[in-house]
C-alpha cells in the first residue's frame, strides 16, 4: 500500500516538474539568447513567402541567430488575437484597418505608416479564380450576378481578403459609371450569389477547390499559389479591380525592437521583394517589379478613391451600421 502512494507522489512530482521546466520555454516570448527572437503574426496567405524570407533574413548580418515564431490566420482574427494578448513583434496583415485596430489598442504606434512605403510591403489585385474551362463564361463583374452563378468569398467580418473583394466589386461599378446607390445594389446581388463565408482567404480557396461555387474572389497571389500547387484552376484579372496593399508594422511592445525593425527593413530590400514576387505578390519596389511581368490593369483603382480605409471601414463594414453588415442581415433567412 505504501507503494501506491509512493507511485502517486512520484507521478505527481514528475508531472509538475516537467511542467515547471517546460512552461518558461513555451511561454517566453523573449529569449535572452544572443540572436534575439521575433514573433511574426501574419494573415493567412503569405505563409510560404515568409518562410523563405525568414531564411534569407537569417543569412544576413542583422538576422543572424534571430529565431522566429510564426502564426498565420485570417487577418482580422489575428488582429483580434494580438489585442487579446497574442504576443507579436511584427504584424503583417492584409489591410490597413486591422493595423488600425492595433493602433487603437495601443499596440502599434500611429507613426507606423510614416515611412516612404506608407507601411506597405506588398501589393496585389483582386482576381476571379475560375475552374478550368470556365463553363459559365465568367469574364467580368456583371457575370458574377448572372442567374445560377455561385460566388465564393470569405466572411468580411474576419477576413481582410473579403473586404478587398467587396471594395473591388463596389469600385468596379463606380468606375463603370454607376452611382453609389447602384453600386450598393450590385453588392447586394453579389452577396445573394455568395455560397460560402469562410473565415479567411485561404479557407475560401480551400472551399473553392473542393468543388463549391463557380468563381472565387481572391488575391492574385492566392490564385498563383493554387496554380503552383497544381490545382485545376486558373484566374483572370477583371479590367476594373482594386489595388490591394498589405501593411507591416512593428508593435510597440516588441520584445526586441531592434531585431523587429531590422526585419521590417529587410522586407523592403530587393532580396525580400524578389521573394515576394516569386511567390505571386507584387513587390512595392519599382525596380524589382520590373523583373516580373504582372499585368497592369487599365481600370485599376485604390482604396484612396473612396476616402481611404478609415472612411470605408466605418461606412461599409461597421458591425452595426455598415452597408455590408446591413446587406448580410437583410439576406438572412
Amino acid at each position: 500500500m505504501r507503494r501506491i502512494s509512493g507511485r502517486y507522489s512520484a507521478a505527481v512530482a514528475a508531472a509538475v516538474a516537467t511542467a515547471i521546466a517546460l512552461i518558461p520555454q513555451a511561454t517566453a516570448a523573449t529569449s535572452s539568447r544572443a540572436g534575439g527572437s521575433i514573433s511574426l503574426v501574419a494573415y493567412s496567405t503569405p505563409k510560404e513567402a515568409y518562410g523563405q524570407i525568414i531564411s534569407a533574413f537569417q543569412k544576413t548580418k542583422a538576422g543572424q541567430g534571430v529565431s522566429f515564431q510564426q502564426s498565420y490566420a485570417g487577418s482580422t482574427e489575428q488582429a483580434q488575437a494580438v489585442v487579446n494578448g497574442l504576443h507579436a513583434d511584427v504584424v503583417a496583415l492584409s489591410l490597413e484597418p486591422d493595423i488600425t485596430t492595433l493602433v487603437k489598442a495601443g499596440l502599434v504606434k500611429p507613426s507606423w505608416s510614416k515611412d516612404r512605403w506608407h507601411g506597405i510591403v506588398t501589393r496585389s489585385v483582386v482576381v476571379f479564380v475560375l475552374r478550368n474551362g470556365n463553363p459559365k463564361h465568367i469574364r467580368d463583374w456583371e457575370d458574377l450576378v448572372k442567374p445560377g452563378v455561385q460566388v465564393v468569398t470569405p466572411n468580411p467580418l474576419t477576413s481582410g481578403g473579403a473586404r478587398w473583394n467587396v471594395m473591388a466589386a463596389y469600385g468596379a461599378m463606380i468606375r463603370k459609371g454607376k452611382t453609389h446607390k447602384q453600386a450598393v445594389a450590385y453588392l447586394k446581388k453579389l452577396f445573394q450569389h455568395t455560397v460560402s463565408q469562410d473565415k479567411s482567404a485561404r479557407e475560401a480557396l480551400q472551399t473553392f477547390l473542393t468543388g463549391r461555387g463557380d468563381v472565387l474572389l481572391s488575391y492574385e497571389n492566392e490564385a498563383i499559389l493554387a496554380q503552383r500547387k497544381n490545382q485545376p484552376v486558373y484566374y483572370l484579372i477583371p479590367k476594373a479591380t482594386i489595388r490591394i496593399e498589405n501593411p507591416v508594422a512593428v508593435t510597440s511592445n516588441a520584445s526586441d525592437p531592434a531585431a523587429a525593425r531590422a526585419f521590417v527593413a529587410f522586407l523592403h530590400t530587393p532580396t525580400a521583394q524578389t521573394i515576394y514576387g516569386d511567390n505571386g505578390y507584387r513587390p512595392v519596389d519599382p525596380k524589382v517589379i520590373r523583373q516580373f511581368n504582372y499585368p497592369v490593369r487599365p481600370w485599376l483603382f485604390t482604396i484612396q478613391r473612396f476616402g481611404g480605409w478609415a472612411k470605408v471601414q466605418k461606412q461599409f463594414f461597421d458591425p452595426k451600421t455598415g452597408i455590408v453588415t446591413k446587406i448580410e442581415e437583410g439576406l438572412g433567412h
Partner: protein
Amino acid sequence: MARYALRFAALGYLAILLVLPVSLVFWRTFEHGLSAPWHAVTTHDARHAFWLTILIALVAVPANTIFGVALAIAIVRHRFPGKGLVNAIVDLPLALSPVVVGFALLLLYGRLGWFGPWLERHGIHVIFALPGMILATIFVSLPFVVREVVPVLREIGTEQEQAAATLGASGFATFRRVTLPAIRWAVAYGVVLTTARCLGEFGAVSVVSGHLAGKTETATLFVQDSFESFDVTGAYAASVVLALIAIATLVAMNAFRPKEETR
C-alpha cells in the same frame, strides 16, 4: 426474425455512421504506401504537435486524477454546505461547448481580461501559450475521474473505513490502505477517459492557441491546419495516429470498464 432485422439495422447504423468513414480514412492514408504518411507525421511541426499534446496530458491527467479523487471523497463522505452545488459544478464542463471554455479563459487571462494587466506586468503568458492550453484541457476533462469514483465510493459504504478508524488509523492512512484500493479500478477507468478527452481536445485549445506553428499547435490543431494548407496527406496521417491512440483507448476502456456495464 425480428431479432435479425434489429441486429442488421443496428449494426448497419453503426457501419455507415462510424465504421465506414473511419476505415476510409485509414484506406486513403495508406493507399499509396507508408512513406508519404510517415514523412507527413515526422516533420518538425508534426512531432512538436504530438509532443505538445502529450505534455498537456501529462499535466492535466494527474491534476484531474488527484483532485478528482479528493472531490469525490468530499462529495460522498463529507458534509458541507453547498455540496449539491459542487456536484453540479463538477458536471459543468460536460454541459459547456469547448469554444465557450476557451472564450471564458480569454476573458480571464487575455490581455483585456480580468488578470490581463497583472499578467502582462509580470511578463507571464497564459493565453496563446502553454499554460492557457493546459487550463483549457484541465477544464474540459475535469469530470471524469470524479464521476467514476463517486458511485463506487457510495457503493462500498463506510464500513471498512470506520473499522479502520476504530482500529486507530489516521485519516490519511485510512485513505491509503482502505479507500484507495477499493476505488483503484474506478480511478483507472476515469484516468483512461480523462486521457482520451485530453488528447482529443480541439475547440477550447483552438480559441486559446494563437496558431503559433511549432509552438502552440496540438495534434488536433495540426490536423486542421494541415487540412487548410492543402496538406491532405498530413491531415489524414495525423488523424490516423490519433485514431490509433483512440483505438488503444478503447482497449483500455474495455479492460477497466466497471463491471455493471458489462455482461
